[in-house]
């Protein structure tokens, strides 16, 4: 099957093999960048509207008091996943997310950033202590983290691959008209999967950064260094904006 195999296209510097997934990822990135640049010069309002739409989706999914630190990660995750799910409707293109390596990379980014946001919000020691609050829950939590990563990756990969595969199989049997309907179905599933991945990442992050009552007392006493740096940076940025 042409959809499943990922051959090596070029070899960089004679040592780094580049598979076709990477090339399609570059094309997707270029497409997003080009579209954003074109929209920025032609219709800036539309760009703003798209951003407001993404912020609205994230605002529904998360219940945190300040949404700003999470918008760059989750918004770019959503836009990239959406584009790479939908890019297979262009002939001779394959979705980068139909390769398990891309989806595992995305899931690892999500899981590690959940922990990093939790550590920034609560302080590293407080956050890590929650994993072993009764000590026998530690293996269960670790297995939970692992299976969360695996299920994030496999859900996206399986959905996108099955959509592409069904279109390819039907195309090899009936090349006219009928693949259009299945392409529509796979497009709907791709949009839904991008939405679901972003919403799940938002839910994980908001469950990692939510502060319990007894934790907030600890938080007041020792403010973590990273958070102070973060706040200072933002204050500097705000001052710079007001000056200019």
């Amino acid at each position, binding site marked *: *099957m042409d959809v*499943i195999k990922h051959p090596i296209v070029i070899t960089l510097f004679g040592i780094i093999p580049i598979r076709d997934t990477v090339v399609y990822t570059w094309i997707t990135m270029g497409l997003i960048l080009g579209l954003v640049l074109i929209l920025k010069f032609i219709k800036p309002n539309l760009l703003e509207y798209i951003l407001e739409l993404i912020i609205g989706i994230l605002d*529904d*999914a998360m219940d945190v008091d300040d949404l700003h630190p999470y918008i760059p990660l989750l918004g770019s995750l959503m836009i990239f996943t959406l584009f790479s799910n939908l890019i297979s409707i262009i002939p001779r293109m394959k979705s980068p997310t139909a390769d398990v390596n891309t989806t595992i990379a995305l899931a690892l980014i999500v899981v590690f950033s959940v922990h990093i946001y939790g550590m920034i919000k609560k302080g590293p020691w407080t956050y890590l202590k929650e994993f072993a609050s009764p000590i026998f829950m530690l293996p269960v939590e670790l297995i939970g983290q692992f299976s969360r990563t695996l*299920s994030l990756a*496999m*859900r996206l*990969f*399986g*959905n996108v*691959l*099955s959509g592409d*595969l069904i279109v390819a199989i039907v195309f090899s049997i009936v090349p006219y008209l009928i693949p259009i309907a299945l392409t529509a179905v796979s497009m709907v599933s791709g949009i*839904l*999967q991008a*939405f*679901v991945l972003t*919403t*799940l990442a938002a839910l994980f992050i908001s469950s990692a950064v939510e502060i319990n009552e007894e934790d907030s007392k600890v938080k007041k006493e020792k403010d973590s260094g990273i958070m102070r740096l973060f706040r200072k940076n933002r204050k500097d940025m705000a001052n710079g904006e007001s000056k200019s």
Partner: protein
Amino acid sequence: MENLSPEVLIILVTTVVSGIAIMIGTMIPTYMQGKAAEKALEGMARQPDAAPQLRTAMLISMALIETASIYVLLVVLVLLFANPLITRFFGG
């Protein structure tokens, strides 16, 4: 049946098992998705104000249920296109 070679037997069993697995593995999650949609629609009909939240929750839970059938699909794809048993016992 005696004159079947082991490779043919493995391929035969794999194909039959794949068919049964994809049948059962799509039937039950689809039934459960139907139940989820039914309950969400009942809730939307009873309280139209809460329809957006219900729709979002329904989409997320249906995607999570869909994961089960996707796992079945992945196992079936591995069995059909990259069968580890054949390469393991007969050297590809």
